[in-house]
């Protein structure tokens, strides 16, 4: 295998080019994507290659945009929708929650909503309260939705290709701070399965489950902890729902300590879900409580210093780990 060091954004772009080239039923629609490269930059070059029919600029109509993906997917197409910000879930919520997520079940299994909704979340650009949230907890709560949040270029490319080929509705959550991150991605096709976690760092002293950009925050914290002889094992679920519980449980049986890191607000956040689930399974293997490291329960402020402080930082993870160690 030949690996190249490319950015997360480039990895996504490659995935889209390859899948659209492979299957003529795949098309992409979203706001601003058809001209230039769109707000996120992920769709650059696609319109030139595949034309305006398959790379569609939509009106600012999230309900119609997201709902149209359902109708298209049930009639032989494989749409990819770009939902510019996850904060816009409120605008298209009915189509996500009541239509797309429930189509398979309500039809007794006949409907195959083979669609992907690509979106992005998180802080990092001072875009403030309505454009910086991390809302995976809302999605994970709805049965029928597959929710993935890859943290590296390789995971992003492999998971996006798999998501496009799958017959389930997949929410593919990118992160603002991911796009420039570079990583090794094979030149050859490398699909990553849905529903499988990945150990990003091996360690014997504490298990850290981290999602999305927090994988990188956790890796930074692990470096610092390592200097003090504390070795953290970092597990990236990659698919948030359904969660691949077994590797996490297996890790905790070795380390006896668990910290869960997530960029959403603490209350009702994804870290709570992971903590509760693991608590039921590995309670007797734990030497202390499961700790959550999450954003403060507040809207994201516009001020960049405040913004940086409100979400988990390496020092917050280090502090949680040290709390668990004697």
């Amino acid at each position, binding site marked *: 295998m030949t690996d190249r060091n490319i950015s997360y954004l480039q990895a996504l772009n490659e995935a889209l080019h390859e899948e659209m080239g492979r299957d003529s039923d795949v098309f992409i629609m979203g706001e601003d994507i058809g001209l230039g490269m769109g707000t996120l930059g992920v769709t650059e070059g696609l319109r030139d290659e595949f034309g305006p029919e398959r790379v569609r600029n939509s009106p600012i109509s999230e309900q119609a945009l*997201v709902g149209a993906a359902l109708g298209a997917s*049930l009639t032989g197409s494989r749409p990819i929708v770009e939902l510019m910000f996850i904060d816009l879930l409120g605008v298209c919520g009915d189509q996500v929650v*009541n239509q797309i997520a429930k189509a398979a*079940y309500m039809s007794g299994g006949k409907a195959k909503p083979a669609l992907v909704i690509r979106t992005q979340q998180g802080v990092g650009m001072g875009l403030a309260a309505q454009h910086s949230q991390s809302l995976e907890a809302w999605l994970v709560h709805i049965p029928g939705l597959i929710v993935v949040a890859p943290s590296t270029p390789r995971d992003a490319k492999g998971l996006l290709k798999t998501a496009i080929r799958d017959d389930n509705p997949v929410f593919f959550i990118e992160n603002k701070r991911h796009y420039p991150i570079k990583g090794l991605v094979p030149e050859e096709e490398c699909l990553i399965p849905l529903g499988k976690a990945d150990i990003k760092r091996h360690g014997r002293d504490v298990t850290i489950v981290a999602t999305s950009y927090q994988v990188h925050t956790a890796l930074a914290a692990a470096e610092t902890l390592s200097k003090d002889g504390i070795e953290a094992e970092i597990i990236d679920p990659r698919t948030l729902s359904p969660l691949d519980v077994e590797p996490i449980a297996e890790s905790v049986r070795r380390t006896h300590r668990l910290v869960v890191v997530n960029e959403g607000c603490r209350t009702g956040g994804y870290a709570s879900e992971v903590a509760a689930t693991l608590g039921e399974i590995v309670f007797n293997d734990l030497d202390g409580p499961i700790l959550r490291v999450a954003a403060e329960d507040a809207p994201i402020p516009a001020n960049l210093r405040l913004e940086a402080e409100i979400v988990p930082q390496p020092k917050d993870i280090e502090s949680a780990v040290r709390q668990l160690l004697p």
Partner: protein
Amino acid sequence: MGKMDFTGDQLIHTYRQMRRIRDFELAVYNGVRRGVIAGGPHLYVGEEAVAVGVCTALHDEDYITSTHRGHGHLLAKGGQMKPMMAEILAKATGYCKGKGGSMHIADLDLGILGANGIVGGGLPSAVGAALSSKLKQGGWVVAAFFGDGASNTGSFHESLNMAAAWRLPVIFVNENNRFAMFTPMQWTTGITDIADRAAAYGMPGVSVDGNDVLAVYAAASTARERALAGEGPTLIECKTYRFLGHYVGDPQDYRTPAEVEAQRENDPLLRFERVLADRGVMNEDERLDITRQTEREAAEALQFALESPEPDMSELVKDVRHPFNPL
């Protein structure tokens, strides 16, 4: 193809389709009164000409999206009474294995994308199914049914605009039965004729007598031709009326029994019976014969549903999602 092109047999078939809906809905009504149907289904009695007029203009490969008051659309599009009734009773033999219920009946093989419990919820899907037709050059159109209440939703606005902007083969069929749940349309809507909204989106809009099945058919036919010719969507407002409440047991505080009685003169079945009689196509004996058949078909469907098994408990967690495709 206009009114004059219907053969006698086709006219009778059209009548039979309307009669089937009427008798099916009355059987459901009966089932609710008997305490064997739960969930408060929303019945289509009085609106049969809209579903039948539109679906007669559609071909098998066309799709429809429906509403919470969808039994009429589903039957007109080819739905069979037994699996429909079984789904309304939430039995294992229903179209959705008893897991969808009255408001979510779907059958993709019949081109039925689904009834919908959310007012206006099916319109975006209809736009998407039409987009698919365009992209795949599939040659089908999509008829999207929705009510006067739905025409005030954001979903309506976005869907009509998107369909017009992208010139998609959608027929937007508005069933204006004057009441959105319990509220008269004129209390909540700034205009009187929903067809007037079409111009705002850049598509033709027509207002037809929704109780005249041939008029509905003509409008739908024209819209279908337009759509297939690449001219984009059409909005057809069908002015109609529902004789029963929003659901069975609705106290109907929003109208008087006298008003409902007066509207009965305009019953689409009565009117079409007169048309067929005038044309010498169907006499009274033939009419009674058809009615007996449809009543029996509906009664047998209810009996089938009553005798059908409940879904197995294991169905509770099945079909939430599909197994992941192997890589």
